[in-house]
């Protein structure tokens, strides 16, 4: 697939999902189990992405400067530091460690 095909197809699917909620009768999604799974799906995907982004290199697992950077980010989020500041701090921690090692 080309990058444009991926970008356009994924965008269409995401817009369709938003539109769907305004079109379908609400009853179809009233079941609490369905709502719970949808909520947990978001959590599972984000957590898996964090893992892959922190430790993955292609198909290998590698512990490097990203790990301390993400730990710093977790501490900063716990201290209620704003998102953008945390993201920049994480980048700086990783870049700093790479410069020194």
């Amino acid at each position, binding site marked *: 697939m080309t990058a444009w095909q991926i970008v356009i197809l994924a965008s269409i699917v995401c817009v369709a999902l938003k539109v769907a909620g305004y079109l379908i009768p609400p009853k179809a999604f009233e079941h609490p189990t369905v709502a*719970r799974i949808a909520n*947990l799906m978001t959590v599972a995907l984000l957590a898996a992405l964090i893992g892959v982004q922190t430790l993955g290199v292609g198909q290998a697992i590698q512990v490097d400067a990203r790990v301390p*950077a993400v730990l710093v980010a977790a501490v900063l989020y716990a201290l209620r530091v704003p998102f953008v500041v945390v993201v920049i701090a994480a980048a700086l921690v990783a870049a700093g460690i790479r410069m020194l090692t």
Partner: protein
Amino acid sequence: MMATQRTPEERAALRSGLAVGLATAVYGISFGALATLSGLDVWQTCFLSLVMFTGGSQFALIGVLASGGLAAGPAAITSAALLGTRNVFYSIRMAPVIGPGFWRRAAAAQLTIDESVAVSTAQTTPSAQRVGFWVTGLAIYLGWNLTTLVGALIGDLLGDVSAYGLDAAAAAAFLGLLWPRLKERQTQAVAVAAAVVAMLLTPVLVPGLPVLVAAGVALVVGGFNLFGAKGGHA
């Protein structure tokens, strides 16, 4: 519209909508930078913010592309779609607030995201809920697209990802999206289990797939309501 004075509730909704809108719009910088560093060009990056316009899915798409390249395209699309499913529930909740009318609903659908729904549902009167939704959604739409462009141009200039620590920034960005959802034991359990599953499968499966399989944790835990509020599990 002109003749009626805004109620205190509507003014409160307007204020919180603008505050949340401005704060969220700034994330666009990180999205724009990370998207170009994942291999997309500036136009593709801006297309995502203009059309897809749902932060979690946008970050997921570029995250999978960054680790797996264009070959991981189907997995990237599926990740974005699965993360976008929560918007279906947001739309259902917003439909009565928005009211009838094709164009109004079409515009509302595009602006239905975490933040606009959160601000809207936090308001106490129906009119304030409407104001909260539209103000938040529009503020974020404008801001997010502007900052995406700025971030994409910055990312385009920066070049090599890892040298600048931007791969770690992407992980930190996902963590920021996850953080507010970790209040209950059930979500904490799912987060840990999904991360472990994704890690265990990374050496075995092609890039992108481990994330999708890890989403199955939500099916199992949600379907059987493990670690739920009533369960009293350890």
